[in-house]
């Protein structure tokens, strides 16, 4: 029964990883940008939420929206001012830009808010759970996180496949020069992609901060690793793979923790490496954007 519980908790943990990885996968799929700042932007999203309730008195549930709005706006500026130009330079330049941002964000946060955690307390929701009997319980909040992850990834999938803008986004991923011949500005599509990516990572970061009860500056260095591992395990370019990848990573970490408290990270990395060795295309890998 302990192991059933372990797997269950792991699946619930995986929700956050999946959500964080969705935006990473989208940006890479459309623009071939490996966003190394994704984890730090996620933490920045957590800060936006925590700071808005601490200093501006925004009710905690609404901090999610504040965070999404702030990061969405930031995403637009980031794409328009830096990434568009970097993309015009070379294939590697955008990654270097995101690396720079990944260095700047945590240092700026530490400078402004110190290394102390910025609390983001969700009160009773943090501990409330549903008893399943037999010693099994599902926390309301982790459950909410998984539901949110499924909704986000489903939403992304429907957007990409059922709407005209979504189709155009996938077409832009295939050939940005040719969409211009159809009257489509590929740079606008890039901006939209980055906004969507950062809005979803803001949601992930806020839920992450809520789950931990607060957020500290340097956590992005770890979360970006989880996000990349999730994408690789699930398979690049497949949103369902991303969900599966998040859940697999969550279960691996949770199983590691069950064996020994030092093991969660190692267990996650080992599963990631095993996937790379035995199934490099990932569980649901395809060569094109889903």
């Amino acid at each position, binding site marked *: 029964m302990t192991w059933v519980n372990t797997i269950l908790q792991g699946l619930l943990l995986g929700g956050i990883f999946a959500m964080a990885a969705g935006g990473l996968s989208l940006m890479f799929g459309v623009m071939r940008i490996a966003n190394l700042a994704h984890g730090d932007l996620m933490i920045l999203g957590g800060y936006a939420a925590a700071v808005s309730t601490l200093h501006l008195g925004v009710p905690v549930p609404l901090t999610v929206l504040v965070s999404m709005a702030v990061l969405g706006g930031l995403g637009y500026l980031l794409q328009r001012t830096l990434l568009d130009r970097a993309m015009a330079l070379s294939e590697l330049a955008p990654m270097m830009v995101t690396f720079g941002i990944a260095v700047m964000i945590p240092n700026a946060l530490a400078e402004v808010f110190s290394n102390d955690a910025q609390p983001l307390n969700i009160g009773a929701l943090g501990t409330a759970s549903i008893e399943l009997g037999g010693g099994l319980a599902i926390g309301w909040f982790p459950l909410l996180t998984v539901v949110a992850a499924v909704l986000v990834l489903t939403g992304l999938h429907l957007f990409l496949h059922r709407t*005209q803008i979504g*189709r*155009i986004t*996938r*077409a832009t*991923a*295939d*050939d940005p*020069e*040719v*969409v*211009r*011949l*159809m*009257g*489509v*500005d590929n740079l606008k599509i890039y901006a939209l992609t980055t906004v969507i990516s950062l809005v979803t990572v803001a949601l992930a970061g806020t839920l992450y901060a809520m789950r931990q009860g607060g957020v500290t500056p340097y956590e992005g260095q770890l979360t970006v690793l989880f996000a990349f591992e999730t994408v690789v395990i699930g398979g690049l370019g497949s949103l369902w793979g991303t969900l599966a990848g998040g859940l697999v990573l969550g279960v691996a970490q949770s199983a590691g923790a069950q064996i020994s408290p030092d093991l969660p990270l190692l267990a996650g990395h080992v599963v990631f490496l095993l996937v790379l060795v035995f199934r490099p295309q990932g569980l649901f890998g395809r060569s*094109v*954007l889903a």
Partner: protein
Amino acid sequence: MTGLELHAVDAGYGDFQALFAISLHVAEGELLALVGANGAGKSTLLRIIAGSLRPFRGSIRFDGADIADLSDIRRARAGIGLVPEGRRLFPSLTVEENLRVGAGTGRKGRWDLKGVYEVLPLLAERRDRRAARLSGGEQQAVAIGRALMGNPRLLLLDEVSLGLAPVVVDQLYAALPDIRTSGTTVVLVEQDLSRTFAVADRLCCLLEGRIALSGLASALTRAQVTEAYFGTASVSAPEVTS
């Protein structure tokens, strides 16, 4: 003046000049065929008209307006549709999705999914197939259909028949009269002289980036075109059919 008008256009890539003092006029609803050997500058000329490439100098007017400074995006919205060399489909999208993206110009008109499927019936059966899994002829049909979905007033077709079996090319050309009934102006690049003479109102032969010969198709002979094609005065030059 309506239609398309180029005046003294020089163009090229970097230091390399591919087109020299190109001036031509295509009236609205006309079909102009560009002929010429490989490397004569035909595709470059189409790219200049579509705006994918900026000319070094010269003016380009479309329906009386100077469009030389308009980006490729704005020209597409203004009704210039290019079927690019090598088809350039979106490989991960299905046939129907490729067509729908073509409607990105936001222009209304006679062409929608239904209309395109009627004129290019082979696409209707394959609408859910990924573009990467189509034969060359099917891909070319999608590329044409995709451009039509944008309801262009000027359609640029770059080597529609390249690498395709003659019977497939016949099917594609069968769609041309339908396309032209809506008053669409067409500029096409074609290597096959018999086909060119069969469809063109006007002919323009490029030789090493310069116009070697141009005029109404009805007023030109194959011998004249062949001569201009090779840049020789020899009347006994072989007939060009490929």
